[in-house]
């Protein structure tokens, strides 16, 4: 047994080494914690923008672009505010947008921001082949040293939102590597980006706007589990969490649930079964093409119960694709959970319940298959809960999980659980305008209503956002028709998810906008107003 000793000795030595190492590391760990606070924050709020911090390829579309600033901004209530612009106006025909620029703005490298930079930004973005869509921008002209004219191909009232989303990049400092070394006129400048790990930013000394009390921000790119653990270990000040972790508690942190338009709903094929020869696809559905069925489902299901059961209370009932946004028509909120009313609707239309309690009419059973993306657990749960609620009304729903590519094959003829929610009303245009029927995911249910098309075209041609919003609202419900549940009801909107964050008890992030579909970065939008309270 002698021979074992050397091994034991080595093992013991290694163990001791580990313990010493561990003890030493505990000390330095504590130093870090007490040293900085108050003027610096650590955030674990979202995924890393892997394609970098270049607004011309989509950075900063929601939330604060941090490093850059935009011509216009939207305040909490979606009112247009001036940022880099001192004023703007739109020509009568809606084709020319004239924007006048402030003359006192400098980039974080000390160089002045000029009209050339604005032109450069929009031209670069137009050719970027990215999510930034400037197809409708015909040309940009410099009128004088501080004024620029955007000329559009066709009138587009929501061009306004592009002006609020696209951060201005410096022509002199723009290169292949800009997305890694962004220079801009925003509240912060990039100090260090450790890819896959963290982003460290510091106050931009040249920033012209309201200064944030936090001089340094560190954004961590951790997996959800790791981010939660980091918060539990007291290493982050704000962390985004999925609903299943929201029931936990983190000492020293409070849970904040932000309302959103991150919605989930069911798209119902609007037309009778048929074949779109032009596109070569099967379209329509016998049962869901019946307005009465769509209306009965809309009033029969209980959205509050869905929020409670499926989202564990972290959500709000959804009645449209744009709940609570300025272009949303409040009148379209309906009273739901009315099973008897739904039954009565169906019976009045000649539907009769069979022995199984399922409605039938002319030998057709009120039955359809509801497809959901199999990878999304929330959508699956919603589909199953919906199925039970539909059964109470007397409509049979079969659920089936599929991959997105399979869904693309069947979505023109089968109801699908979908989710949208943008801060740009153009989304409604693409979802409900008849000219987008069968174009990819746009209007996949082949919805069409001449009146609705007309209102939405008027909205696009409107000059002011207020005027546009009036038409957007009319397209939803004008008292007689519309695409909401009161009108043609081609969708059953179910719920809006809430976005959940644990926030340090001392950190006050104030009121937030209704959050868009994307999680995380949007919360940084009003970071200048965040405060630390002892």
């Amino acid at each position, binding site marked *: 047994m002698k021979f*074992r000793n050397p091994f034991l000795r080595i093992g013991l030595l290694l163990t001791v080494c580990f313990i010493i190492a561990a003890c030493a590391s505990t000390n330095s760990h504590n130093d870090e914690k007490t040293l900085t606070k108050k003027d610096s924050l650590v955030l674990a709020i979202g995924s890393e923008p892997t394609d970098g911090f270049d607004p011309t390829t989509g950075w900063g579309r929601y939330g604060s672009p941090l490093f850059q600033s935009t011509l216009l901004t939207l305040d909490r209530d979606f009112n247009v505010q001036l940022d880099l612009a001192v004023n703007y106006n739109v020509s009568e025909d809606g084709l020319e947008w004239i924007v006048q620029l402030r003359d006192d703005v400098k980039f974080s490298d000390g160089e002045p921001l000029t009209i050339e930079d604005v032109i450069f930004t929009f031209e670069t973005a137009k050719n970027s082949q990215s999510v930034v869509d400037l197809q409708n921008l015909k040309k940009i002209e410099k009128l004088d040293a501080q004024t620029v004219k955007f000329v559009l191909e066709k009138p587009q009232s929501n061009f306004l939102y592009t002006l609020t989303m696209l951060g201005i990049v410096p022509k002199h400092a723009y290169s292949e590597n800009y997305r890694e070394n962004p220079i801009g006129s925003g509240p912060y400048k990039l100090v260090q980006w*450790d890819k896959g*790990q963290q982003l460290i930013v510091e106050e931009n000394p040249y920033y012209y706007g309201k200064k944030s009390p936090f001089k340094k921000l560190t954004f961590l790119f951790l*997996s959800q589990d790791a981010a939660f653990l980091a918060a539990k270990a007291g290493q982050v000040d704000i962390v985004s969490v999925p609903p299943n972790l929201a029931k936990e508690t983190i000492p020293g942190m409070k849970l904040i649930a932000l309302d959103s338009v991150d919605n989930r709903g069911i798209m119902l094929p609007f037309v009778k079964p048929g074949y779109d020869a032009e596109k070569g696809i099967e379209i329509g559905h016998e049962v869901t093409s019946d307005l009465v069925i769509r209306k009965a489902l809309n009033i029969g299901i209980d959205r509050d119960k869905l929020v409670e059961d499926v989202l564990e209370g972290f959500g709000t009932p959804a009645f449209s694709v744009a709940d609570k946004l300025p272009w949303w028509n409040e009148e379209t909120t309906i009273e739901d959970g009315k099973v008897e009313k739904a039954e009565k609707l169906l019976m009045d239309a000649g539907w009769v319940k069979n022995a199984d309690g399922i409605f039938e009419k002319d030998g057709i059973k009120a039955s359809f298959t509801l497809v959901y993306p199999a990878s999304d657990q929330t959508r699956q749960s919603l589909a199953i809960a919906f199925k039970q609620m539909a059964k109470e009304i007397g409509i049979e729903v079969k659920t089936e999980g599929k991959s997105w590519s399979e869904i693309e094959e069947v979505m023109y003829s089968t109801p699908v659980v979908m989710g949208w929610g943008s801060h740009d009303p153009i989304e409604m245009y693409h979802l409900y305008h008849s000219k987008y029927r069968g174009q990819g*995911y746009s209007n996949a249910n082949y919805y069409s209503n001449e009146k609705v098309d007309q209102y939405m075209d008027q909205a696009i041609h409107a000059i002011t956002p207020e005027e546009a919003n009036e038409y957007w609202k009319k397209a939803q419900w004008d008292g007689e028709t519309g695409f909401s549940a009161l009108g043609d009801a081609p969708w059953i909107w179910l719920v809006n998810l809430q976005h959940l964050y644990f926030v340090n008890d001392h950190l006050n992030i104030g009121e937030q906008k209704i959050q868009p579909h994307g999680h995380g970065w949007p919360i940084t939008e009003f970071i200048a107003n965040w405060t630390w309270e002892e």
Partner: protein
Amino acid sequence: MLQILNIGKFILFRTIKFIILLFAVIVCSFLLVSYSPVDPIQSYLGAEMMVVREEQREEIAEYFGVNESKTEQFFHWLTMFLHGDLGTSLLYRQEVIVVIQERFLASFALMAISWIVSGIFGYVLGVIAGMNEGTMIDKAIKSFCFILASTPAFWIGILLLIVFSLWLGWFPIGLSMPIGMLAEEVTVWDRLKHIILPALTLSIIGISNITLHTRQKVMDILESEFIRFARAKGEEGFRLFARHIFRNTLFPAISVHFASFGELFGGVILAEQVFSYPGLGQAIVQAGLNSDVPLLLGIVAFSALFVFIGNLLADLLYYFIDLRIKNGETI
């Protein structure tokens, strides 16, 4: 001279085999991605899909290169690959080779440390078990190995994370450097602190293979004639090990360990996910989830090369052992 010629021939054969293998791996990976249900444009646009016009989507499709047919895409990629160009990652909007360079260093440090640690520990445990066959120690080590061999890496990672980082606070939660610290302030000690847990996770996974293999080897040798002879001369315990067993088991152990490069690569992907460690593993997961074909194929080709080198080294070691035996040298 003959020997050098032989080795040259051996390496040449191996390389040819590797090129064929690489081609097969790339074709398979490409087929898999092209049948993947993830549409790269959809995953890029997400919920923004309704805000982007059809014309713009065409532009994006063009940038992504998904307008071409699958075969066109593949041959396009292959020609570029043969010219030494791995293309541009759709996700990172950056050259694939740059992404791999940036990421590989971190992964390599992680793999190197855990490869060495698991090699040493695995070998030592294997010898202890082998020399004490049938005793409690042997049984304990054996069960330990079986448990480890059937434990998923990410689970061990999370366990270590919870115990050492959350409860005890000895190690950081993840990343390869302290939160919010500037690169020039980061010390070697900081780096080390961050690498310990992921490297430990990886080593734990690697240990069982080499331990069980070494244990078997030691037991085989203990059965042999020359050991009986040595024992008859009164050699026992550590002396017996040092004189006869050590050299006979070390080479096979090292070559087995080289051959485990493939598993090492697989393990590093999981460990990096758990510890948010910024290496190749993280990149390949994102590439897969978003159908970033150039990046995925680039990393696949690169990792095939990596595993090939590991296996080649293992084979060469065996080759040398064989030569020595043939030449009648004593080991």
